[in-house]
């Protein structure tokens, strides 16, 4: 009788914890949204600004759709910012300088991004270089290439902005976002491709012993990331309208911040959820947008941002993972 009670109590505790873990990332998002509704006196909810929010979250959400596969197996790619910049350059060069049709430009961007991400994957899988080091090398290569190419092209290439207004339509971006997020969610949560990534993040040796090729699935994750970065690069190019040596910079950090804000476990594994990345991306977008609209004195922005981030993370991040890690390391 007593044993059954203990069992029941443990089950209830596990259920409560799961429920909490499902709710907490939303709590951070709700908290930040309410906060900015108050301080901006509702201006953040203006129709115009909602369109801005879609535009702003587009790139990071799209890239997150791919990054989730890599981070779930415990990998990372620190090169996606400069890879995105290089993909943008190739795309704009094909369209503006070579006069090729837009779909070919998009293909060019996707190809470059997939190639760069695959190199990171290959280096970490085949050469057993830590993905952090491998991606740093690729980051230098792509940033260097971008710098040389933009210099040769006269410093920067500018898009004929009027021709590309259609790609900045909120409706088009909204549709692309829905399709990509839907597809990403399906692949990550419902198919072998996503489930195996989580399993590898949990214990890659067990996965290997189950007869599954860990290398193949890791490689596939990097290719999916490259595909998403390529598509995101195209839209980022049409949004900013110019490609220079600094294009794409900082995307890798945005992804990491989104990961933390969404409560995504840093070492991957079974606790990794697709929605964590997406929620993190949305939270970050609202944070950036809200801080600007608030009209804070610029000297205080970093301080307030830091305070908001720490409050958000303390609300949404699953610290039990950290506890497990510290227990193991002890």
């Amino acid at each position: 009788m007593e044993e059954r009670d203990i069992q029941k109590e443990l089950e209830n505790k596990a259920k409560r914890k799961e429920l909490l873990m499902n709710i907490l990332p939303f709590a951070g998002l709700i908290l930040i949204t309410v906060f900015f509704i108050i301080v901006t006196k509702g201006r953040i909810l203006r129709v115009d600004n909602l369109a801005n929010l879609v535009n702003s979250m587009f790139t990071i959400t799209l890239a997150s759709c791919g990054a989730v596969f890599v981070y779930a197996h415990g990998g990372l790619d620190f090169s996606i910012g400069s890879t995105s910049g290089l993909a943008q350059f190739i795309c704009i060069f094909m369209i503006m300088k070579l006069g090729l049709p837009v779909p070919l430009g998009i293909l060019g961007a996707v190809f470059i991004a997939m190639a760069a991400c695959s190199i990171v994957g290959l280096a970490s899988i085949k050469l057993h270089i830590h993905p952090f080091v491998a991606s740093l090398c690729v980051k230098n290569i792509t940033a260097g290439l971008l710098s040389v190419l933009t210099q040769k092209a006269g410093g920067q290439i500018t898009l004929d902005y009027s021709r590309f207004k259609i790609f900045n339509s909120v409706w088009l971006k909204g549709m692309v976002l829905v399709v990509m997020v839907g597809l990403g969610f399906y692949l990550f949560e419902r198919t072998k491709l996503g489930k195996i990534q989580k399993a590898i993040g949990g214990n890659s040796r067990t996965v290997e012993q189950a007869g599954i090729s860990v290398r193949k699935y890791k490689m596939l994750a990097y290719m999916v990331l490259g595909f998403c970065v390529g598509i995101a690069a195209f839209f980022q190019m049409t949004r900013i309208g110019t490609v220079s040596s600094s294009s794409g910079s900082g995307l890798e950090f945005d992804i990491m911040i989104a990961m933390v804000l969404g409560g995504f476990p840093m070492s991957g594994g079974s606790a990794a959820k697709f929605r964590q990345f997406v929620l993190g991306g949305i939270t970050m977008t609202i944070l950036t947008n809200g801080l600007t609209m608030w009209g804070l004195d610029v000297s205080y922005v970093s301080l307030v941002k830091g305070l908001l981030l720490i409050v958000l993370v303390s609300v949404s991040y699953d610290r039990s993972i950290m506890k497990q890690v510290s227990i193991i390391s002890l």
Partner: protein
Amino acid sequence: MKRFFVLLLVCMLAVTAVFANGDDESATGSEPATTSAYEKKSIAVVYSTFTDMLGSEFKGSLESLAQYFNIDFHFIETGYNTEEAQAKTDAMFQMDLDGVIFVSPTVATLEAAYKRNIPVIALNEPVDEETGKQLRAYPNYLGGVVNDDYAIGRNAAKALYDAGCRKICISYLTPGTSKNHQDRYDGFKDALKNYPDMIVLSESSSRAQWPAAVKTFAAAFPEMDGLFSTAFSEPGYNAIKKNGLVGKFKLATADISESTADYIDNGVICSISGGQYNKIMLAFAALYNYLYDGTRILDTLGGYSYTPFIQITSSKDYKVYEKYVTGGTNWVYTPQIIEKLIMGINPDMTPEKFDEFCKAYSISQVMSLRSGN
């Protein structure tokens, strides 16, 4: 304990928010404009950071004009992340703005401003012709007041040569990052043709890794007696000091920072160009011409008016510079000087006179203007 910590953070946030709230006019330096003769306007100023010396001087210069012209300035820091910069710019346009001073506006920025009928003035020329063509096509683009960066390179080459340097190295910003730095580099390289016996030992481009360049050059080329760097900052000076390089070579550079005076005094700097704080005040004047009565003062000047840097070559120059150009309390121009540049207010002002005024920027100009006030 955890709850206490979160509560503490929330309290800190609340207190900071109260002190930092942009609606509190004193926070931006814009005192309630009861004494101003002008209608209230709201202007956004967009720059990568307002916390470095140049950025804070830009901010301080404009804030010194806020009360007189009844301006509510909103300073937007874009940082160096392109996506975040665009997101902040888009959010900025949600404010009720009358005008924008943008360091390097993009076509996307102009498009967003155009939709809301907001005039934009620049502090840099576009990097390429295509961008310039597209920017000029927007009726809300007023052009810009920009620096003559090419002259920095030219003056630096002469200063190094005059200081006796014959074996030099060049450190510059990664090409394609900034047109200003590219112009400085081009000016220097072109001027080198006049000094055939001044040899370039090595060149290095980086994303502002000035200390690394100093250390590498000094280690690889001990014979180096001169260095041209398209900009320099505190870590660079620290590298000179820590590596015992004071007295080993002369430095010609741009952008004045906290230690500049010390390195002029100890003989390291033979030429430094700076004091470009005036251009944001001149850009404000050009924008205010438009806001006052629709005057587009830069149109007949080809869209841009050029203003030089102040070149400092001695400790004496620096003292004068410190007194009249910088220092945190003494801004380059007073509101009354700026007022005289507004054609709607001062009927004697013309685009040509405005251009002459911009071009005449020097310590002596500032001194004579101050003595007249």
